């Protein structure tokens, strides 16, 4: 058995506890050097993590394949039938989208499809059981900045909460710290509210929706971009209303939303260069007009990698109308 002097042993644990509490206090207060240190350490680690990911990802895929073999077959069948259906709708939607874009230009409204996007691959999930994040293989060197919204072709995934040189961490919709101002229902919006993640659940809740609003199951929920300082551009689909509970005499209703994106199986995402969502120096560069700021941002960063990694024009997102900014009914098709 190991023998120690008791006093020495006690002083070590006391010293460690004091150091840890000091670090926690500094970090909670947002100490700059600590944040830089954290980012630097992650950058240092990222090449190693990339190599390990490359080696072990086939193993992970294989295990995941075994776990999901049954559901994959069913999903294949479903996707085939959906593909046929969507091919039929495609031409019609392209015409509608073009018309919609033209109307928006005339109204001078910011729209998600005007925004540049940076394509990225999800390299790993969260190492913790208490937070819901993913790490993507693009960072500040590619133009990714803290606060930028992250989407897939189906809709909103989350937002960037930490951006290092070559990697960024995305807070997913399901994290309880995630929140977004949303609109329920297509033009005109039935109601607006704040969507929030639920600890560990696959669904979200929407708060601040009046009990009198006629929200129903199946209504579409998308970002409203209503607030001037909104983190998200308007019109990004989030999901569908799964359940609505109204209490007699209650002030607001309980709304549960099921996101469109399956957050457990995302592989590729796009980070939208949304000016009002970014933080730090970029905010100052972007001035006031979000639509104009998007184009400038990439150029001003002067980053050699940025052009190669940027998807320059439209996102395969949505043709849903923007409801919030103008507040008129004239921006629909």
């Amino acid at each position, binding site marked *: 058995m190991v023998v120690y002097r008791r006093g*020495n*042993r006690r002083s070590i644990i006391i010293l460690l506890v004091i150091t840890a509490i000091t670090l926690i206090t500094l970090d909670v207060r947002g100490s700059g050097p600590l944040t830089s240190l954290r980012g630097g350490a992650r950058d240092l680690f990222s090449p190693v993590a990339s190599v390990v990911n490359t080696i072990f990802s086939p193993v992970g895929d294989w295990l995941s394949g075994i776990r999901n073999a049954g559901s994959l077959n069913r999903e294949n069948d479903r996707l085939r039938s959906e593909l046929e259906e969507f091919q039929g709708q495609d031409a019609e939607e392209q015409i509608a989208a073009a018309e919609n874009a033209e109307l928006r230009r005339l109204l001078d409204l910011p729209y998600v499809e005007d925004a540049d996007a940076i394509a990225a691959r999800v390299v790993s999930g969260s190492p913790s059981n208490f937070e819901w994040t993913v790490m993507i293989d693009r960072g500040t060197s590619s133009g990714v900045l803290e606060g930028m919204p992250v989407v897939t072709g189906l809709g909103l995934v989350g937002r960037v909460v930490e951006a290092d040189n070559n990697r960024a961490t995305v807070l997913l919709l399901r994290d309880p710290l995630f929140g977004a101002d949303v609109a329920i229902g297509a033009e005109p919006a039935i109601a607006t509210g704040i969507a929030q993640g639920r600890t560990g659940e696959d669904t979200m809740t929407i708060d601040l929706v009046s009990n009198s609003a006629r929200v129903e199951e199946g209504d579409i929920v998308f970002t409203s971009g209503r607030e001037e300082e909104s983190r998200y551009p308007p019109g990004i689909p989030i999901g569908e209303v799964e359940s609505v509970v109204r209490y007699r005499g209650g002030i607001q209703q309980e709304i549960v939303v099921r996101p469109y994106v399956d957050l457990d199986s995302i592989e590729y995402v796009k980070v939208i260069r949304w000016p009002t969502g970014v933080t730090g120096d970029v905010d100052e560069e972007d001035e006031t007009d979000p639509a104009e700021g998007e184009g400038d941002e990439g150029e001003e960063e002067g980053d050699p990698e940025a052009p190669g990694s940027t998807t320059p024009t439209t996102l395969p997102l949505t043709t849903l109308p923007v409801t919030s900014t103008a507040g008129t009914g004239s921006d629909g098709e």
Partner: protein
Amino acid sequence: MTWNVRLRLLLLLVTTTVLQITVFPDLRFFGIAPELCLVATIAVAFRAGSEVGAVYGFVAGLAIDIFLQTPLGLSALTFAIVGYGVGFVQTGLSQTPRWAAPMFGGIGGLAGGAFFVVIGSLTGEEQLFAWRSVWVVLVAAIYDAVVALALFPIARWAVPVDELAGRARMP
């Protein structure tokens, strides 16, 4: 402690941290991943005692904190306390039971999870204070108990018997 042992512990720390952030997020059961670094801390503390366990736990926790959104130092504090506690209990054992690895892995994982939630809640991470956290801590503890079966022999390799004998001769 010899440099050979320090190097081995460093290798163990780096390996478990890299695996925790790259491989194990994809190896979840019931949506829960094991706390590899915490189990390594428990294994090292069980092998080398409370002093080494606390220091190893602090450094391992700090390493994993870098990749989390929770405050830097939260895991370090949790792991250091668990490492110290496991080492303290271990010194009271007259002989090592055969089921030591899963038992210490499980109970240590349970304590570590509970400390993380409580200390995290106190530091303002209110989302940790939820019923789901109980479920997470319980399932993770079971997972930790299984992972401990692999990590305890590795800790034995990292801190060999002659090193322990050397420590025992210390005043």
